[in-house]
C-alpha cells in the first residue's frame, strides 16, 4: 500500500528537470550567437545602442528552433518520461550551432537561404526523431526483419549506383538521389540498415561466431555458414562504395563492422584479421585508383615549411591540395580565441559548408571553441555507450553500441580529414554540416537510442 501512494505522488519530481535545466544554457547560447551574427553586419566602428539591436523578427529562426526543441521536450515529458535526459539538449545545441553556421556561411558561398533550409531540415529531423520513438514500440521487430532492412538499404543505394554510372566515372562522385529540388543521400539510411543487420545477426549467432569453426594456425575463424551472410553484407557495401567512389563511407562501414564484431564476439583475433584485410584492400586501392593516391599525397604534404616550397609544391597547394591547405590556414587563423562568429573569412575554403565546416568552426571559435565542440560530441558518445551498457537484451545493446559507433567514427573521420591527419572524405560532421540527409539520419540514430533507453528504464523501474 505504501508503495502505491509513493508512485502517484512522484509526478512532480519525476518531471524531466535535468533535461529542462540542461536546455537553459543552449537556448541562451543560440540566442547570443544569432545576435552576434546580426550585429556583425553593422559598421564595426559604430557604438552599439539598443536601437540597432536585432529585432525579434530577425531572431525568428532561432526562436523557432528553440520552440521546436522545447516542444520536443514537452512531448517526451508526456509520453516518454523515462528516456535519457541528456541526449536532447546536447543534440539540440549541436543542431542549433549547425543552423547558425549554415546561416553564417550562406552568403559567403552564394546560397543566402542556406540557414533557413538547414533549419527546415532540423525541424523535420526532430519530428522524425520523435516519430521513431513512437514507432519503435517493439525494438525486436527490427531484429526480425534484418534481411529486409539490409535489402532495403542496398536497393536504395543501387538507385544512386545507377545515377553514378550515368555520370563521369573518373571524378569522385557523391551518392545523391535528386527528388525535385532536394538532394538526398541514401547512404545515411544504408548505414543504419547495416547496423541493424549486424546487430541482429550478431545477437543471434554470437555464440557460434565466438566459438569458431576452423583454425589457421593459432587463429580460429567462425564456420563459413555463419560467417557467410555477414561477410557478404560487408563486401556488398564495400564494393558499392568503391564503385560510387565514396571512400569515406567504405571506411565508415568497415569501422562499424570492426567495432560490432569485437563487441559481439569479444575476440581480438577477428578484429586483427579484419584490419589486415582492410590494409590489403587499401593497398590495392592505392595502387589502382589515382585519386586515392592524390588524397594520400595531400596528407603527406608539408604545409608548415611554406616559405621553402618548390614550384611543384606551390602548384600542388593551389590545385590538388587547395582545399585542405586552405582549411589548415583557416584553422590556424582562428588562433586560440577565434576570429569571432561572423568575423572570419570562410570564402577561401572550397565546400566549407559541408565537408570543411569543422575548419569554419575552428576559424571563428578558435581552439577553445573547438575543444568545447569536441566535448559535446564526446558527451553524446558517452550517453550512447551508456545506453548500450544498460540495455537489457543483446540486440538492444549491440544496436545502441553500433549506432553510437556510427556517430563516433563519422566525427573522427571528418575531423581528422579536415586537419590533414587523414585523407579528406565526404563524410558530414554530424549535425554541423549543411545537408538534410545527414541531419535526418543522425536524428533517427538519436531516436533509436532514446527508445532503447526508454525500454531499459521501463524494465528497470516498472510501469510507474
Amino acid at each position, binding site marked *: 500500500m505504501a508503495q502505491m501512494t509513493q508512485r502517484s505522488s512522484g509526478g512532480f519530481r519525476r518531471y524531466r528537470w*535535468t533535461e529542462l535545466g*540542461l536546455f537553459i544554457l543552449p537556448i541562451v547560447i543560440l540566442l547570443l550567437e544569432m545576435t*552576434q551574427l546580426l*550585429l556583425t553586419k553593422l559598421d564595426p566602428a559604430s*557604438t552599439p545602442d539598443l536601437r540597432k539591436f536585432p529585432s525579434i523578427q530577425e531572431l525568428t529562426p532561432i526562436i523557432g528552433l528553440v520552440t521546436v526543441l522545447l516542444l520536443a521536450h514537452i512531448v517526451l515529458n508526456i509520453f516518454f518520461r523515462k528516456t535519457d535526459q541528456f541526449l536532447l*539538449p546536447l543534440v539540440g545545441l549541436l543542431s542549433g550551432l549547425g543552423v547558425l553556421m549554415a546561416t553564417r556561411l550562406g552568403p559567403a558561398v552564394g546560397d543566402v537561404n542556406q540557414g533557413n533550409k538547414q533549419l527546415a531540415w532540423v525541424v523535420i529531423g526532430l519530428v522524425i526523431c520523435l516519430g521513431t520513438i513512437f514507432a519503435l514500440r517493439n525494438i525486436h521487430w527490427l531484429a526480425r526483419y534484418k534481411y529486409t532492412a539490409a535489402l532495403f538499404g542496398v536497393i536504395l543505394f543501387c538507385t544512386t549506383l545507377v545515377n553514378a554510372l550515368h555520370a563521369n566515372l573518373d571524378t569522385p562522385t557523391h551518392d545523391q538521389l535528386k527528388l525535385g529540388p532536394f538532394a538526398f543521400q541514401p547512404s545515411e539510411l544504408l548505414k543504419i540498415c547495416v547496423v541493424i543487420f549486424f546487430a541482429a545477426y550478431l545477437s543471434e549467432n554470437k555464440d557460434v561466431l565466438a566459438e569458431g569453426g576452423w583454425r589457421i594456425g593459432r587463429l580460429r575463424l567462425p564456420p563459413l555458414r555463419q560467417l557467410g551472410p555477414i561477410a557478404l553484407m560487408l563486401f556488398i557495401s564495400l564494393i558499392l562504395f568503391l564503385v560510387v567512389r565514396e571512400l569515406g563511407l567504405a571506411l565508415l562501414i568497415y569501422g562499424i563492422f570492426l567495432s560490432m564484431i569485437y563487441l559481439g564476439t569479444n575476440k581480438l583475433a577477428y578484429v586483427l584479421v579484419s584490419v589486415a584485410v582492410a590494409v590489403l584492400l587499401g593497398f590495392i586501392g592505392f595502387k589502382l585508383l589515382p585519386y586515392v593516391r592524390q588524397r594520400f599525397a595531400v596528407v603527406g604534404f608539408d604545409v608548415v615549411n611554406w616559405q621553402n616550397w618548390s614550384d611543384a609544391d606551390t602548384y600542388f597547394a593551389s590545385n590538388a591540395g587547395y582545399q585542405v591547405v586552405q582549411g589548415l590556414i583557416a584553422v590556424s587563423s582562428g588562433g586560440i580565441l577565434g576570429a569571432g562568429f561572423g*568575423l572570419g573569412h570562410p570564402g577561401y575554403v572550397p565546400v566549407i559548408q559541408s565537408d570543411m565546416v569543422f575548419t569554419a568552426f575552428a576559424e571563428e571559435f578558435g581552439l577553445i571553441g573547438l575543444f568545447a565542440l569536441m*566535448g559535446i560530441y564526446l*558527451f553524446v558518445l558517452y550517453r550512447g555507450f551508456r545506453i548500450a551498457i544498460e540495455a537489457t537484451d543483446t540486440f538492444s545493446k549491440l544496436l545502441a553500441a553500433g549506432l553510437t559507433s556510427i556517430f563516433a567514427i563519422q566525427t573522427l573521420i571528418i575531423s581528422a580529414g579536415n586537419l590533414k591527419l587523414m585523407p579528406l572524405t565526404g563524410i558530414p560532421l554530424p549535425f554541423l554540416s549543411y545537408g538534410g540527409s545527414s541531419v535526418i539520419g543522425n536524428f533517427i540514430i538519436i531516436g533509436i537510442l532514446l527508445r532503447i533507453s526508454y525500454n531499459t528504464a521501463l524494465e528497470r523501474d516498472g510501469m510507474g
Partner: protein
Amino acid sequence: MQLDTFLLILRILFIVLLYLFLMQVVIAITRDLRRTSASSEDMDSKGPPVLGHLIVVDSGPTNILPGTRFDLQPQTIIGRGPTNTIQITENFISSEHTRLWFRNGMWYVQDAGSVNGTYVNNQPAREVISAKPGDIIRVGYIQFKLTA
C-alpha cells in the same frame, strides 16, 4: 564603447557559456551515476524485505564464526538443502530443519520435522512457538539470537 569591443565581450561570453554548459552536463552525469550505483547497491542487497536477523551466539561443533548474521525474510526456512532461505551444510542439520515466519509483528518458529530438533529458549518447538527479539533459537547444535 565601440562595436568591436562589444563583439569581443560577446565572443568571450559565448566561450564561457559553452564551457559552463559542459560543466553542467558533467555535474548532471556524475549525479546520475551516483544515483544509479546507490540504487543498484540497494537493489542487490535488498531483494525481499529483511525483517530481522539471527546472530550466531554458540556455533557448537561447527566452524561458523560466532557473531555471524543471517537475514530473515518474512518466510524463512533453515536447512541443509540448497532450496532453503538460509542454507547451513552441517551433518546434524536436516534438509529442512526450522521454519520461521513473521506475522502481525510477531515471529513464529516451528520445527520442520528435523532429527535434532528446534528449541526456542530451550523449549522444544514441535508446535508453533512465538519468539521475540532477544530469544535464543537453537537449531540442532547451533544457537542463534533473534534480533530485529
